[in-house]
């Protein structure tokens, strides 16, 4: 329930199930196409998997289009997302987090983990979480110490330098 007591039960629309079924057909099709160029030994197992995958996805697609509408998605043994938030707000917030994650990967690529971790921590805490300066700097510093002590000192996990450092010759 939301703060005003509403629960946003968003039905799993036909279009979305169709989208995922088509995605699976494309993946299976790509596998069959690729396997057709390989030797029997190499291509046999992917073919054995991809063909039923295409057939199942096709069956699902046909059931979605021509079958009775499914009242619910059925009890899939998996977690469900919270329903207290309006779907468009939820989608936007999800997009924002994925953008942050993509940004994190980008700065790890450019600057390497040792710089990217405190930088990302600080930026996320300050901009996204709205945390105060002191707390943001403290927590970012703590994350760096954690990373350094555990992964570099204890586990000896080598972190590659960032692409920017390599280009600049550091």
């Amino acid at each position, binding site marked *: 329930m939301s703060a005003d007591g509403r629960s946003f039960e968003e039905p*799993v629309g036909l279009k*979305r199930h169709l989208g995922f079924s088509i995605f699976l057909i494309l993946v299976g099709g790509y596998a069959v196409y690729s396997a057709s160029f390989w030797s029997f030994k190499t291509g046999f197992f992917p073919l054995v998997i991809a063909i039923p995958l295409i057939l199942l996805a096709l069956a699902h697609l046909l059931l979605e289009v021509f079958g009775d509408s499914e009242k619910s998605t059925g*009890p899939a043994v998996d*977690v469900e997302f919270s329903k207290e938030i309006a779907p468009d707000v939820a989608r936007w917030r999800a997009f924002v987090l994925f953008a942050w*994650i993509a940004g994190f990967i980008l700065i790890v690529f450019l600057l390497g983990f040792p710089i990217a*971790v405190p930088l990302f921590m600080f930026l996320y805490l300050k901009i996204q979480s709205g945390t105060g300066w002191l707390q943001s700097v403290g927590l970012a510093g703590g*994350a760096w110490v954690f990373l350094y002590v555990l992964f570099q000192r204890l586990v000896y996990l*080598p972190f*590659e330098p960032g692409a920017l450092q390599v280009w600049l010759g550091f």
Partner: protein
Amino acid sequence: MFEALIEGLFLVLQWKAFSLMLVGMSLGFVVGLLPGIGGAATLALMIPFVFKMTPAEAFAFLLGMHSVAATTGDITSILFGVPGEGLSAATVVDGYPMAKRGEAGRALGAALMSSLIGALIGAVTLAISIPIVRPLVLTFGSPELFMLSVIGIACITSLTGLSARSQIRGYAMGLLGLLLSTIGQERQSGSLRFDMGLMYLWEGLDLVPVLVGIFAIPELVDLAVRRTSIAGDRAPENLSAGVIEGIKDTFRHFWLVFRCSAVGVFVGIMPGAGGGVAQWMAYAHAVQSAKDAKDRERFGKGDVRGVLGPGAANNSKEGGDLIPTIAFGVPGSGAMAILLGAFMIMGLVPGPDMLTKHLGVTYSMVWTLAIANIITVILSLAVLNHLAKLTYIRGELMIPFVLLLVFVGSYTANNQILDLIVTFCFGLLGYLMVLWGWPRPPLVLGFVLGKLVETYLFISVSRYGFSWLSHPIVILLIVVMLVVIVYPFVREKPAWLRASGSSA
């Protein structure tokens, strides 16, 4: 034999061996909590330190560390929805929803107690079965192991809903998982498949980035969407009461815990299968144990039985793993292959000598498994109050820290930036799957089993043609597979039977 059992106990309780076991346990505790850094990798890192130890000290140190990692991995899975170990992914499915519901204490209590019982059952099985397990392991060749893997895949029936479309979705996801497992070099001919011109994919997709991405990122997205703490806006639970409730749950469902422990031991004994398979088969078995479709719907939404099953199997498989390792030098898993290296360093040869000349050392391993797990559970229960409080910290503060753990953990797979991209892609896939109701567990099960299925199928066909299909154990396993597939439908009364029952 009894003297050897006592000798084994004294070997572990010697101050040096015991101290080393405690050091190993501390390492295992931390390693288990951190996503990505697996127990096997840490075993490999610690092997150089055992050169100057006696066999009993070395195994106390290494096994103490390894057995604890499986237990504490469940803690991260429950509190943050991030699999602490590759072996604790199944615990996320019901453990994390419990934490979100404000029942972290109960889930942790159940996970720890079932882990302890599983570990004890594994240790006892190891103790009594070494002399008698030889015929069983030798009877299982590639065809039988292939069929066992197929039974694992058949568990998909239990990991999805019972409606036609749910089943289609489940099996399609299982097939997608199998297909993903074929990425990389084909083992028999060395040809490359689906490598997209990337050397990174030659070795195939690593389990850690896939698992961590598909399970952890959707949970983090949900946390970001809700903008609350993991446990939501609920008042903090009475943790002690919750933990005690979780412990009681373990005994309430003791028969289930026992059966799932047996699944873990059995999968552990079979070479190559590993804990990733054991936990999902145990989870599927827990779902199968649901009384009816309504009861079954509780799984994935925070049912304590979904925590108990994988928790027990994860730890019981350690004992099972050790059986073929000690008795024949055939490692049951990657970690056991590394442990085999320790045998060589110690000058021990797995096989008959371990059951005669070095029986005391063999039983010291049994005691290490038991004692290390008892101590870990007691210590974990003591600090649970503090751990579970983490679920009440504001989500916006937790997210960057958990993301850090997720991505550094994934990076440990190959130390390449592409590990992070794979994690991101599977995170996105996992998010869309949860959003649109396509189940993730079958995909993971297919992915975990894929390489095994292909390898065993190839060896079976190369060696026996198609005559392996007439092996008696294979036929028996085909029957078991059919039972696994059909049982959930038979158990759920058909609609016409329900209608006639209600009208009468």
